[in-house]
């Protein structure tokens, strides 16, 4: 969180009195409140900025400002309605708050408000998200950039996991040897408490100077204990949630076709990083896996005609092959994918690959098909039709200009998912990391079943795969609010046998589990269910049939409004107080879609600069805290007409 004052020719600092980040995680559902109070020390009124970063997976649920005892509260409205207000405000020359993309994992929320001389303002932003388990752990990420010393600075996290906490780790990019002991961590069987609250002096970069050490990411990682093969089912207040990631399952061998774009646009760094990542990924193949390599530009070639067992010799040979890949020519994604599908289907039909194994295609491309079939919609249809549910397609979209929505829909129609690979020195690690996430399937075709008459409004309960280190989450509403147990069954296909477990779940008695705690936040299971439902409806909006898209949009909007979530369909509107400069004006907070984030990044690359609401030409000054970004944009140099 950080507070900024407006740039002006005669800057007078606003003093940040306090910055508090309070995060409560209850059964993976994180509820974070960021509070900041500032004092306008100038003898005239001035604009005070509040800028915080929140994870892009989080939904803002509330925002308020308290000025002179008066509280201005945000209201979630349908995006179109809010936009009308916003447009009206802009056309009358007023300013509005916005959410902007910020790096790979975060987005920035910023607002400004005019504060009278010697007055205080308190900003409170709340957001919620369901933490996702990746590579065996959950991560709570807090980004703090107060930019100046803060009288009261505090990060507090309380984690409540009735399933039991396996471990908790913390680290921060700004933690020096002096600050490290200030992180308090108390872990009991089902609760963890983490606190970090450096004093003014402990925040200082050096004795007597004003610079602060607090600038960066504070990260908490943890996992829960897993003992039951049925998973963990929690029933609270008429809603249930089922977390499924059973221990002790063997990995199912995979048959993977690497479909690699080596067209001209991949030349340079992208191709270099692809070669490096492929070398690393090939070493990670297990001996019982089968693999194929299909590089393509406008021509489609292949390393070997059929899938090959991942023996040491074959991997060595393949490694040499990928080292020789170079970029040139056009991009025939359609033809390459169909070749991959054909190889898997043929090898399966001719029993060259094990019967109990999972088929997958890993497409690595920077997009822009320009050879063969070039219509993205037709490529999506062709792939889904050729695949016919026989394999999973994972797409890795390389670079900032990749058409992510094309790859996302393409993968979703084929039981998989897409991931953006950001251009940067760590692209090789990103590629390898994604492969690690999806290369260890434990179960396929997983169904989580609940009695029809006991539950309704279920979130998705069928999953193509369960990967090692991930977790399946299903939530729903109980038809009978008084029900406190019901029969649960999970079936799937494992390595050697079919997986099938049954059991009864019981309602959780929070008072017994956490006797010393007051009611944490009672409706969290319902909110978790709402969050998950909205996420899935938003996905359906992209890949479903046209009827499904309309229904999903209407339902997601209705739920976003009902539960006060700022999603891509809604906006939060806060009305700023009237000032001598003008009447009330609304502030608008939106949720960005991945496409909007990408667009914003492009704009940020091309137009990396601060916009200023004032009419004076803004002047940078070393006395004024200036915005900082994750990675500074490259300088730009140009010449143009006036």
């Amino acid at each position, binding site marked *: 969180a950080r507070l900024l004052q407006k740039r002006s*020719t005669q800057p007078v600092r606003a003093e940040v009195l306090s910055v508090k980040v309070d995060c409560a995680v209850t059964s993976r559902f994180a509820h974070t409140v960021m509070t900041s109070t500032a004092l306008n020390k100038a003898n005239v009124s001035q604009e005070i900025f509040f800028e915080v970063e929140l994870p892009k997976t989080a939904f803002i649920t509330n925002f308020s400002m308290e000025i002179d005892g008066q509280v201005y509260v945000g209201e979630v409205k349908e995006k179109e309605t809010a936009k009308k207000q916003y447009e009206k405000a802009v056309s009358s020359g007023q300013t509005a708050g916005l959410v902007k993309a910020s790096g790979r994992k975060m987005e920035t929320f910023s607002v400004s408000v005019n504060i009278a001389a010697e007055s205080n303002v308190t900003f409170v932003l709340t957001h919620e998200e369901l933490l996702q388990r990746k590579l065996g752990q959950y991560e709570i990420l807090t980004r703090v950039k107060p930019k100046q010393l803060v009288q009261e600075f505090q990060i507090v996290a309380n984690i409540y996991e009735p399933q039991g906490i396996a471990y908790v780790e913390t680290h921060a990019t700004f933690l020096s040897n002096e600050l490290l002991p200030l992180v308090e961590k108390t872990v009991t069987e089902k609760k963890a408490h983490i606190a970090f609250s450096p004093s003014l002096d402990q925040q200082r970069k050096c004795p007597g100077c004003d610079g602060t050490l607090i600038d960066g990411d504070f990260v908490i990682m943890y996992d829960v204990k897993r003992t039951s093969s049925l998973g963990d089912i929690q029933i609270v207040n008429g809603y249930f949630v089922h977390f499924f990631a059973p221990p002790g399952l063997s990995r199912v061998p995979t048959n993977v076709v690497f479909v690699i774009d080596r*067209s*001209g*646009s991949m*030349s*340079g760094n992208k191709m270099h990083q692809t070669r490096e990542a492929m070398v690393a990924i090939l070493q990670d193949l297990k001996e019982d896996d089968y693999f194929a390599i299909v590089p393509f530009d406008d021509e489609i070639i292949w390393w070997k005609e059929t899938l090959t067992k991942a023996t040491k010799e074959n991997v060595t040979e393949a490694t040499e092959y990928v080292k020789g890949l170079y970029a*040139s*020519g*056009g991009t025939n994604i359609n033809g390459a994918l169909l070749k991959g599908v054909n190889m898997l289907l043929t090898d399966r039909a001719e029993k060259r690959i094990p019967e109990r194994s999972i088929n997958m295609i890993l497409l690595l491309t920077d997009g*822009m098909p*320009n050879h063969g079939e070039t219509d993205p919609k037709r490529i999506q249809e062709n792939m889904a039709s050729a695949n016919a549910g026989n394999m999973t397609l994972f797409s890795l979209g390389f670079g900032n200009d990749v058409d992510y929505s094309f790859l996302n829909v393409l993968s979703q129609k084929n039981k998989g998912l897409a991931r953006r690979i950001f251009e940067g020195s760590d692209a090789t690690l990103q590629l390898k990391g994604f492969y690690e996430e999806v290369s260890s399937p434990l179960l396929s075709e997983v169904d989580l079943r609940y009695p029809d008459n006991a539950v309704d409004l279920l979130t998705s309960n069928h999953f193509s795969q369960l990967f090692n280190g991930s977790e399946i989450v299903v939530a729903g509403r109980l038809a009978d609010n008084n029900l406190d147990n019901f029969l649960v069954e999970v079936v799937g296909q494992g390595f050697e046998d079919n997986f099938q477990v049954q059991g009864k779940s019981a309602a959780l008695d929070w008072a017994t589990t956490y006797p010393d705690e007051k009611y944490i936040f009672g409706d969290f299971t319902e909110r978790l269910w709402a969050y998950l439902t909205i996420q899935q409806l938003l996905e359906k909006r992209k890949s479903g049939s046209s009827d499904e898209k309309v229904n999903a949009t209407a339902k997601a909007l209705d739920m976003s409004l009902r539960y006060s979530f700022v999603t891509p369909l809604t906006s939060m509107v806060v009305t700023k107080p009237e000032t001598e400069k003008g009447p009330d004006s609304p502030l608008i907070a939106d949720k960005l879609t991945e496409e909007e984030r990408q667009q914003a990044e492009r*704009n940020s*690359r*091309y*137009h*990396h*600069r*601060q916009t*200023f609401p004032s*009419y*004076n*030409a*803004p*002047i*940078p000054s070393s006395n004024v805290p*200036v*915005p900082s970004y994750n990675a*500074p*944009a*490259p*300088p*730009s*140099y*140009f*010449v*143009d*007409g*006036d």
Partner: protein
Amino acid sequence: PHFMIELPNKDDALCFNINDKPGTIFTLVKDTKSGILVNGQIIGDKQIPADGKIYTYFWRFGIIHRNLGVKMEVSTNGISVFQDDSRLKLRWSNTTSIKGDGMDILLTKDRSLTVTLKDSVKFVILLHKVWKKHPYHRDYLGFYTLDTHLLSPSVHGLLGQFYHGIEYTVSNLRPGEVPEKPDATMHVKGRELNVTRGWQRDFRSDVKNGENVPCWFIHRNGTGLIDGEASDYIVSGLF
């Protein structure tokens, strides 16, 4: 034309204008090590406007990448690309994407030409189309470098000399002629220059209206900021 040096690390920008007689050719980028050369020719208005000021614009750029054997001429009339023995002509009225040997071209109809030259430079040329019957103005071009980090430290030219950064400080802020544009003293290259806070426009996101970029304006054709004088960058031919 106005030159803009944006320095995101400083959250600041520098700008200056350079004008000369219509027809003059300036060297914008010259890197002998990587074999890159960008020259631009200016053009004037159709007639001298009522205020008597002669405005000039770039209307033609010559670009050479010696190591790739690429030569390009981009003008308001069209684009010619020569590589080794082949020649390609493109019209601004088409949208085209070409992935060549060491060179990618993306032409957006009547708007922009993005060129990526392998392992060296990426730039965008914007086309500003003016109403044909405009009494004074003509079509003109803007040249924006997007990625220059692979160029050698010896890169020079009116734009190129700034590719590896510039150190300066600004002090003594004082009221200027116009209230919104204060003056200040800039310390750069061992000199003290009188500069004025103002704006110049970046047209990449909105080719019609542009976007105002606040910058320190260096008077007298950038004298004191650029190495030597603007006239030192005049050359006789586009290539």
